């Protein structure tokens, strides 16, 4: 049974390993995955600890439904205090690791301390050992995974690994598995590097009994039909996430030249249809692959066909790499996007963060704040493909003055570079956003300003707000499982009703992250995808536990509040430009220059936006300073945190 999956506490300083069952009481309160990790983080990380010190605790988990008969429940979640932001660190990835971890007997790992020398953890059917990784240090993410398989003599082993970026403590280093599955936000690979932890390898053949297997299979058939029939997933199964580029770049939602423009003009070569023509074995209906147990197959594969990396195989690029190596630096060659994507996968670094930070540096170079002396002679002009890729190497290897400075993240880099460099940095809570431009979309702006892990599109973004859905449909979606009769607007340029949508999405995304479900299988990019009403039976048939839609919602609200409590404990204040729920001044002061006629000239209205945040806080049970009311904490059962139930 999924209920039998345990939690393991592993201390790398002492070598001590303990395992523990996860009670039904804990499951009812936090379910699992990211939700339970948020509880563990709050309870097992000391206030104010150094994110790179032994006092930081690293959580790795699968979802409650992972490795059951439920579709697309293969997500792995990783959490710690972030070395990039000093606040919540959290990353979520697909692939095959989490199911293997569950078959090896575990849903959650809690990793403390720091090893004296490079190590990796090997988990095999309930057994856990800490092994020497000296020989693995310096290897790429792909090499590391194959070296572990060769050393242990089992090609079925699945590993979470870091590359050289994590070893070099690049503050936004990824945890990786497979070729391109990335736990890629807030620097969780950097935390692994700080612990001398090169990898976590798992192999499991332990059965997971299904509570009602026939019903689970029957229900899953309907689930698969619901998921694969959605228009968005049919599109993703052909073009992958880069399909988003076409519409977004048409209306003017692509950050270009850091934040100077909101559309990457004439970038036809980095459209997915063009990439399909340029690279071999790539995007298209016959070249897509997927994660464990998923029928959507949104992951493209490719071989680079030209230049110094010709012949190299990789996976992606995702929409995020189109922005990181295309729109933001204003580079328009498909080869640059494909090579950039390959480099970040092999080094193990966040493509969103590195693309955004290099583009910021390009704007500083353009304005004369950075000079060729600081770039070691590199012409860091926008549109310089070679300079962009060279900076990826320099950052991941901490090579040269600027490479080393940018490896520390945007805010520390701005403090080193000085002048008014910070005012050009597009970040929230110290983390760069996706390459999206939210000046014409107040709901999306509210999402990035208030997201728990910093500027981010995967924690509360109401992406369907862009679809102009009728208000009746919006009320149907956003009025369940908790009634909502307030205003909702079909206009994505409107401010009214958006705080509830962001709040609803925040809880929806937390729920799927607890269950281990991929966001492409819920109301993220498609309104007809399953949500709260559809999950109780999946949980019951697979695990035997009864949850109502409202009970799942309540768990999500509780876990989101735990993340808020952690951030407040670590220094979040509402209006702090570096650690608050704020936007860069450019959102208010610099109008959009390009895009659709109704988008040009757009800025975020400062006063209306402030009211949006007030209303969002009200929904969350926070006061006007963003601090939870005692009543809401008691109502959520969080009045006595940290409670140390685990």
């Amino acid at each position, binding site marked *: 049974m999924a209920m039998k999956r345990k939690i393991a506490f592993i201390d790398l300083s002492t070598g001590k390993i303990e395992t523990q069952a996860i009670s039904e009481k804990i499951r009812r309160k936090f379910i699992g995955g990211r939700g339970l990790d948020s509880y563990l983080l709050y309870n097992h990380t000391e206030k104010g600890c150094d994110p790179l010190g032994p006092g930081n605790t690293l959580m790795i988990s699968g979802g409650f439904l992972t490795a059951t008969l439920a579709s697309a429940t293969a997500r792995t979640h990783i959490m710690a205090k972030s070395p990039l932001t000093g606040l919540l660190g959290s990353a979520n990835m697909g692939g095959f690791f989490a199911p293997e971890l569950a078959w090896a007997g575990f849903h959650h790992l809690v990793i403390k301390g720091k090893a004296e020398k490079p190590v990796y953890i090997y988990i095999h059917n309930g057994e856990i050992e800490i092994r020497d990784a000296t020989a693995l240090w310096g290897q790429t993410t792909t090499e590391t995974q194959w070296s572990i398989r060769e050393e242990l003599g089992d090609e079925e082993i699945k590993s979470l690994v870091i590359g050289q970026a994590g070893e070099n403590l690049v503050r936004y280093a990824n945890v990786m598995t497979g070729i391109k599955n990335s736990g890629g936000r807030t620097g969780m690979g950097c935390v692994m590097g700080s612990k001398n932890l090169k990898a976590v390898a798992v192999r499991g053949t332990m059965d997971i009994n299904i509570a009602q297997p026939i*019903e689970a299979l*029957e*229900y899953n058939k*309907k*689930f698969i039909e*619901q998921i694969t*029939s959605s*228009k968005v997933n*049919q*599109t993703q199964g*052909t*073009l992958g996430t880069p*399909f988003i*580029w*076409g*519409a977004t*770049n*048409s*209306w*003017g939602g692509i950050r270009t030249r850091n934040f100077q423009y909101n559309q990457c*003009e*004439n970038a*036809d070569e980095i*459209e997915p*249809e063009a990439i399909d023509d340029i690279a071999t074995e790539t995007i298209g209906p016959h070249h897509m692959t997927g994660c464990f147990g998923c029928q959507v197959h949104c992951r493209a594969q490719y071989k680079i066909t030209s230049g110094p990396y010709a012949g190299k195989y990789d996976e992606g690029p995702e929409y995020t790499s189109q922005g990181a190596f295309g729109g933001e630096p204003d580079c328009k060659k498909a080869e640059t996007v494909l090579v950039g994507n390959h480099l970040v996968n092999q080094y193990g670094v966040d493509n969103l963060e590195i693309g955004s930070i290099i583009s910021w540096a390009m704007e500083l170079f353009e304005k004369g704040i950075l000079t060729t002396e600081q770039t070691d002679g590199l012409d860091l002009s926008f549109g310089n493909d070679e300079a962009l890729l060279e900076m990826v190497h320099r950052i991941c290897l901490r090579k040269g003055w600027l490479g080393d400075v940018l490896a520390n993240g945007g805010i520390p880099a701005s403090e080193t570079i000085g002048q008014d460099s910070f005012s050009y940095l597009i970040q929230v809570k110290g983390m760069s956003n996706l390459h999206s431009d939210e000046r*014409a979309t107040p709901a999306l702006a509210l999402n990035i300003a208030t997201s728990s892990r910093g500027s981010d599109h995967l924690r509360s973004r109401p992406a369907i707000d862009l*679809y*102009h859905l009728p208000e009746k*449909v919006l009320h*149907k*979606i956003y009025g*369940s499982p908790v009634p909502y009769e307030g205003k909702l607007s079909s*206009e*994505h*340029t409107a401010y009214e009703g958006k705080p509830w949508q962001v709040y609803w999405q925040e809880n929806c995304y937390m729920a799927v992250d607890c269950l281990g479900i991929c966001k492409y299988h819920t*109301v993220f990019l498609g*309104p*007809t*995808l*399953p*949500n709260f*009403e*559809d999950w109780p*039976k999946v949980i019951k*048939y697979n695990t035997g536990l009864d949850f109502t839609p409202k009970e799942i919602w309540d768990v999500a609200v509780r876990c989101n509040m735990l993340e808020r409590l952690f951030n407040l404990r670590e220094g979040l204040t509402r209006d702090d430009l570096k650690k608050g729920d704020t936007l860069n001044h450019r959102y208010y002061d610099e*109008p959009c*220059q*390009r*895009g*659709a*006629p*109704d*988008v*040009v*000239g757009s800025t975020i209205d400062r006063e209306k936006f402030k009211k949006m945040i007030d209303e969002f806080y009200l929904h969350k049970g926070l006061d006007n300073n963003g601090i939870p009311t005692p009543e809401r904490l008691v109502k959520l059962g969080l009045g006595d945190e940290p409670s140390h139930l685990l």
Partner: protein
Amino acid sequence: MSADDQTLSTAESLRKTRTYGKFRCHNPSCMGRLQPEAGEGQVKCPECKMEYRVHWIRPDFPRIRGPVWDVNRKLAEAALKKKLEEK
């Protein structure tokens, strides 16, 4: 999606609202339904005049590939000029 009763969830009930062969214009106050001719590479919005390049996922399933640059750039420049003059 219920396995043991006929009640439709919200997600299921919204499936009947799906349409193929069309997509929306992406000018926010327009958002009109555009229906390109089968296999056509471009479509123009009759309301706001924005023009799009089209990719076909299937013969009955078009998507926006990107803007027709020259047409839409002129529309954007005119709109921006007008807005700046009104300020």
